[in-house]
């Protein structure tokens, strides 16, 4: 078996003391920044990139990768205990995880997230190892038309998953696409919508939008409620392990989440965030067992599925990076940067020219996931101590971490102003009942969509039919249309609206 040969070579690389140390360091840092709201893996990896100059390339990539998937573990802790997404991909975990914590079931929620992530991480790594080589071949068939259709499908999928008005969710994606246009156009070099502000020629920082809208906007919203109904809970946590009943419900949710996350992680534009959204929405569509807590009220499946999915997605999102050299999300874009620093050109040739790096990185993910489950479950006691911190101490700290995090991205106070502006915007979205997550997705995909639309139409000499005459592209678009039609069917529509009323 070629796969085992490759993996044993990988483990040989990953099991050296130096690489074990860096994997551990990455996992620790990842958990820490996952737990801290407002500091995500993007900011941390960006901060640490310069520090990896001196390291051997394998060790550098192992550590940076550990930060990404480690953050998926840590992010759930904050989502459950503090009602804030410690990491953007934990946005949906907040919904049910926090409700579980309010009912004194923070322990089982954390365990479900940890165990689900571990399982999904192992499966995701295996899939990465098994499918990366053949996918390199398949991906050669993808042209710009296929990529664009794929992104359209991804966005439509995300919209169907958003709660509330479909119309507003699509509009939010469009606003995200527009915000993504700010900055220098790669083709013409024209600085668009930059108002002659030099910092804006690089575009608006993803971190500034995410921190402003999700961090500040939420804090302001929380503080606006009177102390009585403010979303802070003080109930005691008892019993870390889920009950037998919990396990029975968790296991199928973990399996579904893992499958979905692994599949969506591979897609360009996918990764941890999209996977978590999709998994949650699928769980919500399934029928509730008799006596089961409804979604939005603390259902353990609402924690297990998205947490498994985001970790599986985090692992498999390395596939487009390692096979095609295309970063499917912001974190992978930074990994491209890390590889370039070490003179490694990301792309299909990495597997053949740097096999130790390729397989060593994959093997390290397995080791890292094992480290994380050990780090997270015994250390959960420390995170639970966070519960005793009253909100009046917590929120200034969150504001501070957001401000410091966004500043350290570029060492520029301009980003601090931006996060403030997006805080106001985020509060406005909250007041208007507009869900911000689709906006973020649109923001990330905007430049990629424009680029692929341009290339596709350049190749077809301006003929739009190219998107439906190429079979793979047509199939992807058809799937997107089918998804929209299904959601708009009167029966499904009524049910969907009913489901979201429960929130």
């Amino acid at each position, binding site marked *: 078996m070629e796969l085992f040969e490759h993996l044993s070579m990988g483990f040989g690389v990953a099991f050296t003391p130096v690489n074990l140390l860096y994997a551990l360091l990455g996992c620790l840092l990842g958990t820490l920044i996952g737990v801290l709201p407002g500091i995500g893996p993007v900011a941390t990896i960006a*901060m*640490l990139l310069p520090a990896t100059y001196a390291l051997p390339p394998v060790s550098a990539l192992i550590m940076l990768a550990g930060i990404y998937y480690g953050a998926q573990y840590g992010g759930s802790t904050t989502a459950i205990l503090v009602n804030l997404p410690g990491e953007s991909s934990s946005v949906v975990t907040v919904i049910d995880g926090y409700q579980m914590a309010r009912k004194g079931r923070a322990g089982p929620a954390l365990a479900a997230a940890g165990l689900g992530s571990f399982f999904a991480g192992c499966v995701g790594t295996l899939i990465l190892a098994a499918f990366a080589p053949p996918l390199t071949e398949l991906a050669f068939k993808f042209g710009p038309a296929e990529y664009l259709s794929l992104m359209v499908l991804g966005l439509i999928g995300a919209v169907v998953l958003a709660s509330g*008005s479909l*119309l*507003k969710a*699509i*509009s939010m994606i*469009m*606003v995200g*696409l*527009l915000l993504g*246009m700010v900055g220098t156009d790669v*083709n*013409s070099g*024209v600085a*668009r*919508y930059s108002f002659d502000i030099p910092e804006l020629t690089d575009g608006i920082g993803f971190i500034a939008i995410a921190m402003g809208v999700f961090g*500040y906007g939420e*804090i*302001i*919203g929380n*503080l*606006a409620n*009177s102390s009585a109904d403010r979303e802070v809970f003080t109930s005691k946590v008892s019993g870390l392990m889920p009950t037998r009943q919990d396990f029975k419900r968790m296991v199928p949710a973990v399996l579904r989440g893992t499958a979905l996350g692994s599949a969506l992680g591979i897609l360009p534009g996918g990764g941890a965030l999209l996977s978590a959204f999709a998994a949650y929405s699928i769980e919500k569509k399934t029928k509730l067992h008799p006596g089961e807590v409804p979604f939005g009220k603390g259902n353990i499946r609402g924690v297990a599925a998205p947490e498994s999915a985001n970790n599986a997605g985090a692992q498999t999102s390395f596939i487009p990076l390692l096979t095609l050299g295309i970063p499917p999300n912001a974190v992978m874009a930074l990994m491209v940067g890390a590889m370039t620093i070490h003179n490694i050109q990301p792309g299909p040739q990495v597997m053949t020219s740097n096999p130790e790096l390729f397989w060593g990185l994959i093997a390290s993910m397995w080791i890292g996931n094992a480290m994380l489950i050990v780090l997270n479950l015994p250390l959960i006691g420390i995170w639970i101590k966070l519960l005793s911190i009253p*909100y*009046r*101490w917590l*929120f*200034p*700290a969150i*504001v*501070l971490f*957001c*401000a*410091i995090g966004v*500043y*350290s991205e570029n*060492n520029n*106070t301009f980003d*601090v*102003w931006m996060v*403030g502006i997006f*805080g*106001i915007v985020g*509060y*406005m979205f909250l*007041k*208007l*009942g*507009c869900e911000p997550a689709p906006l973020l997705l649109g923001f990330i995909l905007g430049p990629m*969509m424009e680029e692929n*639309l*341009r290339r596709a*139409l*350049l190749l*077809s*000499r*301006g*003929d*739009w039919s190219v998107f439906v005459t190429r079979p793979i592209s047509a199939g992807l678009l058809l799937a997107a249309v089918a998804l929209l039609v299904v959601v708009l069917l009167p029966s499904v529509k009524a049910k969907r609206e009913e489901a979201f009323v429960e929130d």
Partner: protein
Amino acid sequence: MRKIKSQKDFWSGAMFCTVGTAFAWGATTYNVGEGARMGPGYFPLMVGILTAILGLVTMAKATVKGGADGDPIGRVAWRPLLFIIGANLAFGVLLGGLPSIGLPAMGMVIGIYALTFIASLAGDEFNLKGVAILATVLAVGSYVAFVWALKLQFPVWPTFITG
């Protein structure tokens, strides 16, 4: 004019409409080009127009359909809004200074104290001693985590002291 059935949706639509129109209008100042040779204005013009149309549809729908109480937007929570954003601004100004008005950088530590005090005013309770302790903990913690451990390049102390 018909009565608005959903205030939230109506004003959301107005917001989308404004944003879409603004971007589409901005796009016309760049070279738009054509399908086969898109200029920098092509894609934003297309998306901007689409966003504005979606905004109009949302507004129209809000006059027909909405919650029983008209989905009111509700009062704006000015106090948390002003103090949270103000704390953020104060931190930025103190950390980096404002050369345009000749304000030197005061550094991270002073910035953290200012941020903590201003942000704490956003809550219902304000206990001076508690906030002072919190600010000190955050300042020491941030120094250890970001400057000492992560070795980030922060101006820690005011420039007139460090030179």
